[in-house]
């Protein structure tokens, strides 16, 4: 049986960067690279990234 699922993943990423450099931009690309690299260990799954957006720890809805 073919199955599908949409997963929301909440990541916390830390790393060194220049103060003025766009950390959101570089980490989004890093996550894409990490997922792309990991997909090869699961050839039975087709994984598509539909979007990566910056979250906020202090989200108003909480």
């Amino acid at each position: 049986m073919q199955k599908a699922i949409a997963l929301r993943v909440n990541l916390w990423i830390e790393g060194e960067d220049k103060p003025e450099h766009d950390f959101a931009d570089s980490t989004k690309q890093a996550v894409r690279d990490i997922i792309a690299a990991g997909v090869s260990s699961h050839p039975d799954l087709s994984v598509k990234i539909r979007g990566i957006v910056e979250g906020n720890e202090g989200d108003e809805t909480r």
Partner: protein
Amino acid sequence: MSNQKRQFGNARSSWLIIAAVVVVTFLGSFLLVRYLRSRSTNPLKSSALPDVPNKPQPLLRSFNGCPPEGDGGDSELNRLKNRIDEGQYISVPFDAVEKLDWPNTIERRRRSDWNSGDTATVARYEGLPITIDGYLAGARQEGPESPNCHGADASFRDFHIWLTKTAAEDRTNSIVVEMTPAVRAQHRNWNTELLQRIVRDKDKVRVSGWLMLDPEHPDQVSKTRGTIWEIHPILRFEIEQSGRWIPLDDFTP
């Protein structure tokens, strides 16, 4: 012959209907665009907020290596959030800000993408140094954000505070007021523990700072906030105690 006439008549009716639909659609779109444009460029009017055409320019400095523009997002908005100058604060009623309108066309848009009408409309009141009295419905440390260069350390986080008109309200009709890292660094007693105690005890507070429009949270209006107008940053925070206003730095619950 009569069949041919009927067919010709039917074809003519169809073309007339199509033409009518096209005209109505075109006219409707034209009127809708005109309406939206008029909404977005209507000057905001508030009888309770003063007109100050020449507002002070923000004083900006880097904070622990983080420039006022932050590390991404809307750099113009970040510069407003990161100003550190004091102003000649004007006391205004709570409703003057909570009921103040904004052009809906600016929502979720960077300032560089606003049209000149909207920019002028918002500029009429943005940058006013104001004071509002109220109560706190909540106070929380934010996560890492672009205005603070996504600094991981707690010293780089904003404090997000919900100001309400009366003591018994939730956040629904609140004004969001924010303490920023650069200003907090100048105050020994600005911490979330003390703010949460003020929330719990329903103390009356007086908040002074710069009026600013944050276009990023329109979806939260009437849910967790009453408006996207904010006091951001807060420069002074006082608590009423025995009929006197005590600065937060000197406040002992």
